[in-house]
């Protein structure tokens, strides 16, 4: 009897986490657009990392700012050097939770993600609507949100104020695979 009780506890604790399972996206795509009458700016990052813990519904995203590719090579340099200051703030990250997420549900589900988005040294609480597709255990997460340039203390010189939109629309799409550490 004295040996059964601890064993019982052991199974109970492990039994609580049968889906200690994480999925990761290593080539997630994040793109952003700035539309103004003067100039349209578009950039894309195809190496965004994202990970979801299917048991806790936690999600994290991390991207390197200097991996954004712009239409014009010089824009990339300006973006990193003069606006986002990627020497000082190399990454943008998001950490949050998918609300009411049911990993076992096949097909499409639209859910809200609530979490903290950090960029250029500024953290913002965000709520983003995402679409989750579950095709036989392969998850694809996609969505769009708007970011206000002002919120992230990015300085735009008055001369160029007309070239950069005040709200930047951000698109993202992640395809997940099982994560093995």
């Amino acid at each position, binding site marked *: 009897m*004295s040996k059964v*009780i*601890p064993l019982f*506890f*052991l199974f109970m*604790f*492990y039994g609580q*986490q049968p889906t*200690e399972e*994480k999925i*990761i996206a*290593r080539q997630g795509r994040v793109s952003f657009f700035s539309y103004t009458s003067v100039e349209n700016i*578009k*950039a*894309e990052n195809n*190496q965004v*990392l*994202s*990970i979801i*813990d299917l048991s*806790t519904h*936690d*999600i*994290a*995203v*991390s991207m*390197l700012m*200097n*991996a954004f*590719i*712009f*239409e*014009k*090579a*010089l824009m990339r*340099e*300006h973006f*990193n*050097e*003069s*606006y986002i*200051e*990627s*020497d*000082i703030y*190399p*990454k943008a*990250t998001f*950490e949050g939770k998918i609300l009411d997420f049911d990993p076992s549900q096949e097909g499409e589900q639209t859910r809200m993600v609530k979490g903290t988005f950090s960029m250029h040294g500024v953290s913002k609480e965000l709520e983003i609507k995402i679409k989750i597709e579950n095709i036989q255990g392969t998850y694809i997460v996609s969505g769009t949100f708007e970011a206000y340039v002002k919120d992230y203390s990015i*300085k735009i*010189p008055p*001369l*160029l104020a007309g*070239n950069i939109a005040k709200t930047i629309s951000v698109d993202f799409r992640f395809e997940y695979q099982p*994560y093995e*550490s």
Partner: protein
Amino acid sequence: MKAKKIILYLICVCAANTMVGQDLLGILDKEHQDTPQYTQATFKFTRIAFGHSIETRKKGILDVFVANRFWNTPADRAQSFAADRLSTRIALEYGISDRLSMGFGGTTYDGLFDGYLKYKLIRQRSDGGGSPFSVTLFQGSSYFSEGVVPPTIQDDFSNRLSFTTQLLIGKKISPNFSLQIAPSFIHRGLEYSPEDPQSHFAIGFGGRYKLGNHVSVVSEYYYTANPIESFDTYGPFALGVNWEIGDVMLQFMLTNAVRMVEDSFITQTRHNFNFRNPNLNFGFNMTYVLHFKRHLKNK
């Protein structure tokens, strides 16, 4: 005894659970480490002030580069209201690949036509690994197109060519501060006097300090180890401000170097840096950047 055992098991199990459930961003941080990070924009321009920086233009970028120097002749001969003399170099500079650039230009004042090739050999890495500095090779040549008056000078095409080879070594020390050292070898074609060496060794020092996100202060100086003997020369020095506004880049500088081609300003700057005419030059360079390669064309 039993209770102790149970507690021990509980602790073990809990510890195991927390170790598995480490934070997700931490996992992603580890994944990031595989990609090498190269330092960007050690200098924003392909020049620091008058001399070349380690930067090369990215593939498919054409720079339309106009450099001007304004200066006054000594007071008793001064004529104009703004500036007595003006020299302009107009050049086209093109990025063949992300590492290789070339350029051609012509200068009005000293009648030099020049061309160069520049190759970025080593790129500084900012993630701790790799090289701690960047190295760029520069090879330039110039053709002296003006008439040569003294009949003693042997004058043919090959004698009118001069060559400059530079090893540009630059380091972005902090996000705001970059330094460059440039050991240089210059071969001058025309021999004005037999006492002058035709091959010169020189070393250049340059730096940039960012005042804001778009404005930086730059300074540059070249020292020649074996200068021309038949007339006085001084090391070219410049103090300037670089300002970039989107596709336009402006440079403003005070300098004693009138000339704008490497072999000529390093070895043949005839005035010292001070405020007496015609020593002080005001330099104004403008670069307009044209992109011929669209990186997102397929989208």
